[in-house]
């Protein structure tokens, strides 16, 4: 998939194989992987004579954005689909957290005083 993302034009199976020089993959293996990618909608393919030419359906950035937005989205079923470490907070709360963080960053004994007061 990285090969497809870096290519400026659509590639044949042979061209993809050639780019994957560090890994000695059989032509049919590459073909199977590309076929699977296109079935999942990650790659688009079109006929070029006897061969298929493949290109990425969306840019890598678009997929990263989709992945992260669906993870950061706080609505509906996604809340149950995955569990976030911490909900992102609103502006005023973020400022309050910043203050708390600065208080924590001070020497430990000062912080102890702070929490006792």
């Amino acid at each position: 998939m990285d090969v497809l993302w870096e290519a400026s034009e659509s590639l044949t199976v042979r061209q993809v194989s050639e780019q994957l020089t560090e890994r000695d993959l059989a032509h049919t293996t590459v073909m199977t992987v590309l076929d699977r990618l296109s079935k999942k909608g990650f790659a688009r393919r079109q006929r070029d004579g006897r061969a298929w030419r493949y290109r990425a359906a969306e840019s890598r950035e678009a997929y990263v954005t989709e992945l992260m937005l669906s993870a950061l989205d706080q609505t509906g079923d996604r809340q149950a689909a995955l569990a976030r470490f911490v909900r992102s907070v609103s502006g005023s709360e973020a400022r309050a957290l910043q203050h708390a963080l600065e208080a924590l960053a001070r020497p430990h004994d000062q912080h102890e005083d702070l929490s006792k007061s």
Partner: protein
Amino acid sequence: MTAVLVLGLMTATCVQAAAVLAAARWPRRAPAAAIVLWQALGLGWGLAAVGTLIGLGTAGQDLGGSAGSGTAPPGAGALGSGVAGGAVTALGRLVRGQLGFGPMALARLASLVAGLVLLMLLVWVLLSASAAVLRARQRQRALLSLLAHGDPKVPGALVVDYPAAAAYCLPGLRSAIVISAGTLDLLDSAELAAVLAHERAHLRERHDLVLLPFVALLNGFAWSPVVRKAHQAVALLIEMHADDMARRHRPARELATALLRVGAAGGGLAPSGALAAADPASDCDVTARVTRLLRPSQGLPAAALALVAAAATLAIVVPAAVLVIPF
């Protein structure tokens, strides 16, 4: 009729108890016990509410039945074998057209239908929420298999090259912990370890399955303030419980600073920040978690835990017993 009264009371009690529990402070001291109580109240409410409606629909149906035809077994009230048995009997008569007519019979029929509709609605929201969750996870896994890579800083977790701070776990049989590259830059190694410990607790204890019924309820009854509060409370308690689990292995301070850093960094980039801002009650969630970590309070005494366990048992056993045991 006694059974219906008990069920009706249980329905109201569960809602009332949920409102009280949502406002209570003690759950922060014993999140695990409070989560169990929430689950019991949810299940108890479902059983009692469905049972009340169906019970109303079937109570005293021998009168209606004998008015329509003489085949009703003499003296065998609908509750002779519990409300569940009564519902089956009533449905059988409905199919055979023996329920009788008149305003009372119609009212009973409406109540019976309402009970069945509520039951189907509850099952439906749970199924559709599960299906949506599975779909979302499948898409996440497919994307992760293309985009994510490992990183020695966070062993066992997947890293996605994304500048904002994000950390989450993808529960399921093939679970994964996902950390954005932005988080790697933001946190030091001790804080990252604390984040991983927190997420592993979620995965190990399948907290997603705990939350799922409450998400389903929220999807079905978003208009209800009690349901919204219940969902919010359970979500927070699950996080607090995972914090507690992480604290067993990592110093609480590291987890607290990690929470503060990720929470503060995510602020400007939250795609649905408007939602969080519109919900002032949840606005102090992160602060509450941090406060808990830095100033751990005593857990609940054993007597109080026993009380919670007893309440949870009652919430389920009473409606379940009334539904199946003949009165």
